[in-house]
């Protein structure tokens, strides 16, 4: 496949973030200047205001709004924290520095803006996401979780000191960490024609060793369990900007299913955000059907697993027949299997037999 060059969108997006942060500052400034208590309106994130939208195939916030008004004695502190967080985010973004949620919590103290605890500071960051419609990674605030990517994709850094430098993501066999530098990179070119997301590090390493990226022309993404938001956004960018289909391999249990589902349709916690989902990604396995068809070694479903399956059965994201069918089979067989279960047929069986079959089945 021919390498393709892609249009840069990263710098534009950063500009958009800066503009909306400054607009928020200006709005607050103007209200004060006119002699009003500043206030801000944002969509309510309470559970009653979270709906599943079948059109965009993710959770969204409804019409209900909350107003945070500095006139209100209970609002003024969080409002101040919100303005401070916006200022801090603008400084991060404009100086192209990154920080973690923990950093934010401690940085506040330098401005005599003590947060009660990490949770309070996290909540304010989520508020800022809701107000501006950007996710915290856009403000260069990252969580501690890390995942990795491996495959023939050349990226170009935009972080200070690395601007213009390129890297091919096959250059390190452990994969390249999906951190702030990578998520803010431009995609230069790729020969891959698909993305394969894998839940577990063991299988990811096996895939690299078995040259899955070459044999299947794939970019491999390790989610390390539930995919971090930066990783979900990264998978989305791979599918949108490079126009690649995505396949997700997880354990054959309700938790694995849900890892795939969150990549596809997002979570209720991120209902205020867009661009974290990859609605066209496919969950390729391990299905309950696969457990039966491949006669995989299994463990019995425990109580929590069964309870979770019943929850998922009612979840609007799961109303697609495939999901419903698999949930029913899980419940019927009462068994679950891990990805490693394929090793009973030899270490390479999963790559030689299972993977091609499933890619074909779900493409």
């Amino acid at each position, binding site marked *: 496949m021919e390498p393709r060059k892609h249009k840069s969108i990263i710098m534009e997006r950063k500009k958009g973030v800066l503009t909306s*942060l*400054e607009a*928020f*500052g*200006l709005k*607050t*400034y103007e209200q*004060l*200047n006119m*002699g*009003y*208590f*500043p206030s801000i309106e944002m969509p309510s994130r309470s559970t009653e205001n979270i709906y599943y939208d079948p059109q965009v195939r993710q959770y969204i916030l409804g019409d209900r709004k909350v107003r945070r008004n*500095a*006139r209100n*004695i209970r609002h*003024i*502190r969080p*409002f*101040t924290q919100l*303005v*401070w967080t*916006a*200022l801090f985010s*603008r400084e991060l973004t404009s100086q192209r520095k990154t920080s973690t949620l923990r950093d934010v919590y401690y940085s506040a103290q330098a*401005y*005599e*803006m003590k947060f009660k605890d990490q949770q309070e500071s996290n909540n304010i960051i989520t508020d800022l996401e809701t107000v501006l419609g950007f996710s915290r990674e856009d403000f260069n605030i990252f969580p501690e979780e890390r995942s990795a990517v491996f495959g023939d994709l050349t990226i170009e850094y935009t972080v200070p000191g690395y601007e213009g430098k390129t890297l091919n993501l096959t250059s390190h066999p452990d994969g390249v960490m999906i951190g702030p530098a990578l998520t803010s990179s431009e995609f230069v070119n790729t020969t891959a024609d698909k993305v394969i997301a894998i839940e577990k590090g063991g299988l990811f390493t096996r895939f690299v060793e078995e040259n899955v990226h070459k044999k299947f022309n794939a970019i491999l993404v390790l989610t390390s369990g539930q995919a971090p938001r930066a990783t979900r956004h990264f998978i989305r960018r791979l599918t949108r900007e490079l126009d690649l289909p995505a396949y997700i391999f997880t354990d054959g249990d309700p938790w694995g299913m849900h890892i795939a589902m969150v990549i596809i349709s997002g979570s209720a916690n991120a209902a205020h955000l867009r661009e974290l989902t990859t609605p066209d990604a496919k969950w390729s396995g391990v299905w309950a059907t696969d457990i039966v068809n491949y006669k995989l070694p299994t463990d019995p479903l425990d109580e929590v697993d069964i309870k979770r399956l019943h929850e998922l059965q009612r979840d609007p994201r799961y109303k697609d027949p495939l999901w419903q069918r698999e949930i029913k089979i899980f419940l019927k067989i009462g068994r679950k299997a891990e990805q490693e279960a394929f090793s009973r047929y030899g270490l390479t069986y999963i790559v030689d037999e299972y993977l091609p079959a499933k890619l074909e089945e779900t493409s």
Partner: protein
Amino acid sequence: MAKTTFEEISAADFFYRNRDLAGFTNPSRAIFAAVRELVENSLDAAESLKIPPDVYVRLSYADDAGEERNVYRLRVEDNGIGVPPRHIPSAFGQVLYGSKYNPKQQRGTFGLGGKMAILYGQITTHQPARVISSTGKSKIYMYKLMIDIQRNRPLILDRRVLINKEQWRGTIVEFSLEGDYFRAMPKILEYFKQTAMVNPYANLTFVDPKGRLYKFTRITEKMPDAPKETLPHPYGVDVELLQRLIHVTSYRSMLEFLQKHFHRIGEITAKKFLEFSIISPSKNPKKLSHREVVRLMRMMKKFKGFLPPNASCLSPLGEELLKAGVLKELQPEFVAVHQRKPSAYAGHPFIVEVAIAYGGEIPKKGSFLIHRFANRIPLLYDEASDVSTIVINSMNWRRYKVTPDMPIAIAVHICSTKIPYKTVGKEFIADRPEIRREIANALRGVARRLQRFLTRREHASRELKRLDIFSQYLPKIAKFSTQLAGKEKNPDIEKLLRSVKRFGT
């Protein structure tokens, strides 16, 4: 059969044998009781002249005794009315002799306390007491006395007369006694402190055996009105009293007899009562038979038409003095005082005064600090059995937003011509429904005012906090938003800050 002997014992002998009754239970209690009885006599002596009392008390080790023997010398000096010379021997050397038997409010009631102290000193040390007194005239009289216990008579060992060049007036009593000051010390000091609280017009000085000086200085010269002597109230009389009155009366008709010898009986009331009890108004009281006297007493208790005793015979401290005393000795942040209208139980008038104090120097101890007073005497023992404690503990304090962990002191003062003490030791007051009701009502009144104070204070502190939050955060919003918007000059927020200030803060 054993031979039983009957003998009459004197009053002094009786109390010698039953000194527990008067509070001289053990060496620690005894020294406390001795100090207390003499101080109270001194306060009464000054108040009866309506002059602010100066009482000086010195307790020292007796000259001939080491510390381990626990023999002390007690000297109490006052600026009171003084005792006329011919009464000195009996007043200090004869039990149940005294000036305190008419119905008017006084600290002592039995004429017993001071003499009990001297008697106790005599039986523990066998030393005479020294009494020096002058009524402010040209001479000072000095007596050395002992009590002949079996005969209840004073024994005068020495008598001297001095020229009163400085026109000194007052009384000095000095005697030795056995005791245990160091165990009694907390109570004695507490006694002085509380006495100072309800006698804010008195100077009290106490020098203890270690030479430590405790001084309680008056903050006012103002004194409560002295009580007037009154006639007995018909509800409170017994047959014996009726017989005595009949014996001494010079009136020849029941109508006059009732009006002249009883409290709150005028002509109309007397007529109504006589009609009620079917006694002829013209009947000569001296002609009443023994049975008729008993019946008269019963009818007096039954008749509903007597006015309650009035309080002219009482001398409450008054709200102003009580407040001053509490402020002086407790130094609270807040105090509310309340004096109830006079009331009566069994024909004895009484007035309840209460104070509730909050904060300041009052310690938090997990329960209220209760100060009980009767006729301006602090009551320090048997707190749990006292009517005030019972009322305080049964009140629903939560209704007043008051909890026991708050620094709160409560003072209850009951004054009466007859305080219903449970013991001769005068330590706690019996639970009479009339008294209980008055205390409860008085406490409710001050508790409501404390609640208002607490509510206002809480409101003010909440308001202050509110303002503090605005003035803390608004400038920050201004600063951050200015930087965020890339502006130079911070917006003016003074007007906004002024607008959050509510009226009155």
